[in-house]
């Protein structure tokens, strides 16, 4: 704000900031209000707080339905992430390596799991896999979750590869490294941040997925979001707030990791190789 600003400019300046502050508040407030409720003594999910208690965390970590849901989420999301990361990274390398006809069409098909309505993915995979007897299985759930995570890996890895200097691979090859050594020793370390952030997106996609799980998973594959979905619908208790708080802490960790990686990638792109 320059000193020579007129009154109208000043008013506009502050009004604009107030508006933006309100939008930020709108974004962040709902996430903050649920945290205190998880420490509340009462059994209803309402303010005002009646007293401090850790009983809802006890329930979350001890009640079999919550521990099973947590366990399932910890099985499914990493599984989906590994598949999405591996296949997505290979494909991204293939996509940036050469030009071929229908490349952009192919690209949009590979990204389409991100935009196809999730209910359609859920219903179609349910109707497709049920006659084969593949529903109620971890592997099917992991596979479909991986398909949902693939677009994120493709997008981030392709973006990172665009900044990748191909001469480095050529140099490695001319020094006698075979393509696989070149990939693991030269390419992968340089695009690692992109691969990891794509993986984080894929992980978050699976970790937060409820609709496909609703259709495909049996009672033994109930994941954390699925358990919360049932809870919100039927029996809203502060245990949900406890689960939510844990998930929020989790997303903060993921977000900070991602920011760290982004910073690293930025440095990589701008720094001069020694």
């Amino acid at each position: 704000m320059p000193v020579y600003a007129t009154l109208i400019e000043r008013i506009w300046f502050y009004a604009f900031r107030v508006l933006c502050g309100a939008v930020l508040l709108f974004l962040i407030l709902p996430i903050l209000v649920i945290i205190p409720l998880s420490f509340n003594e009462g059994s209803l999910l309402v303010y005002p707080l009646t007293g401090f208690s850790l009983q809802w965390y006890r329930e979350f970590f001890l009640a079999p339905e919550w521990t099973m849901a947590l366990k399932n989420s910890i099985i499914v999301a990493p599984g989906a992430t590994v598949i999405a990361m591996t296949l997505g990274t290979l494909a991204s390398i293939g996509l940036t390596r050469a030009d071929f006809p229908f490349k952009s069409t192919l690209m949009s098909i590979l990204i389409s799991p991100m935009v196809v309505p999730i209910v359609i993915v859920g219903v179609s995979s349910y109707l497709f896999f049920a006659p084969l007897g593949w529903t109620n299985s971890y592997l099917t759930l992991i596979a479909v979750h991986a398909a949902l995570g693939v677009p994120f890996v493709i997008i981030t890895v392709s973006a990172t590869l665009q900044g990748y200097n191909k001469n480095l691979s050529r140099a490695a090859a001319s020094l006698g490294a075979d393509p696989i050594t070149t990939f693991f020793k030269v390419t992968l370390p340089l695009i690692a941040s992109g691969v990891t952030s794509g993986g984080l997106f894929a992980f978050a996609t699976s970790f937060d997925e409820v609709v496909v799980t609703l259709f495909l998973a049996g009672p033994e594959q109930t994941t954390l979001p699925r358990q919360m979905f049932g809870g919100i619908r039927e029996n809203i208790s502060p245990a949900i707030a406890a689960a939510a708080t844990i998930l929020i802490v989790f997303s903060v960790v993921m977000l900070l990791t991602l920011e760290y990686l982004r910073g690293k990638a930025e440095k990589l792109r701008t720094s001069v190789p020694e």
Partner: protein
Amino acid sequence: MKRFDMKPLVAALICLSPLSAFAKDLTVISFGGANKDAQVKAFYEPYKKTTGNKLITSEYNGEMAKIKAMVKARNVDWDVVEVETPELIRGCEEGLFEKLDWSKIGNKKDFVPAAVSNCGVGFFVWSTALAYNSAKLKGTPTGWKDFWDVKKFPGKRGLRKGAKYTLEFALMADGVKPGDVYKVLATKAGVDRAFKKLDQLKPHIQWWEAGAQPPQFLASGDVVMSSAYNGRIANAQKDGNKSLKIVWTGNIYDVDSWAIVKGSKNKDAAHKFIAFTSKPENQKVYSQNIAYGPTNTKAIGMLDAKVASQLPTAPANLKDALAINVQFWVDNGEELEQRFNAWAAK
């Protein structure tokens, strides 16, 4: 680079997936909430203790789709499911449930007649009744006519989001005697009449889907009156919500049954489990934990008067009650549910 071809690996991964469906412990699926809590105390825990077998238990909201998909795929991993009677009969007709071997379960004569059928064993009698919050409502409603009277009793109403029961209640509110409800509903004009009556109340309705919702809505004041499962209201009273009350006039009762999913790999254990839950001493514990009536006539005598008076099977509560017409809902259920859903979405 060829060594990076993932196809065989993916194919192998996918081929592995049916392996995860190996034979396992008995899986019992029931409606959740307070009903399941009572089942845990009365059936699941004692069953595990006396037989030493494990149980996998989970809940659902009565959707037949999962059962149908399992049976069609011949990949059944639910063994015993709790179903309402129209679904039981329809599922039996469509071959979704196993025909039961009653010799393994017990003497048919020990059960109330509605609990006995080819594919199912009724294990409790429950009722959908009018419930209200006396702390938030001025005056005492006496029946479904008052439920529709938003002038005399202002405030929101809760109803189950579905045609079953809702149409019957609408007709009773419109002055149809309980005994004539299904006669009227069997005609196109009668169905139109029920929907017309529902139109009047539509702006004041908050729909519920799970049995745990009505007591929550009533306690929080979101609605002042609601249709509700009597057991859920009784449990809420026990938990301290003393102001929740039930009006028994015009309640509709039904039996919930166990059925064995066709193609279950644990048929023997399933029969044993059902027989276990049919024993009078176990049904007694169930009724003590949630106010639903036992189907084993021997269990009725074992309950003390205070518990018995809260059950749908108590003579005073049966006086103005209506038994669900199973055949009507078997024939018309799907069509009316679709029409209802279309109506509700408008």
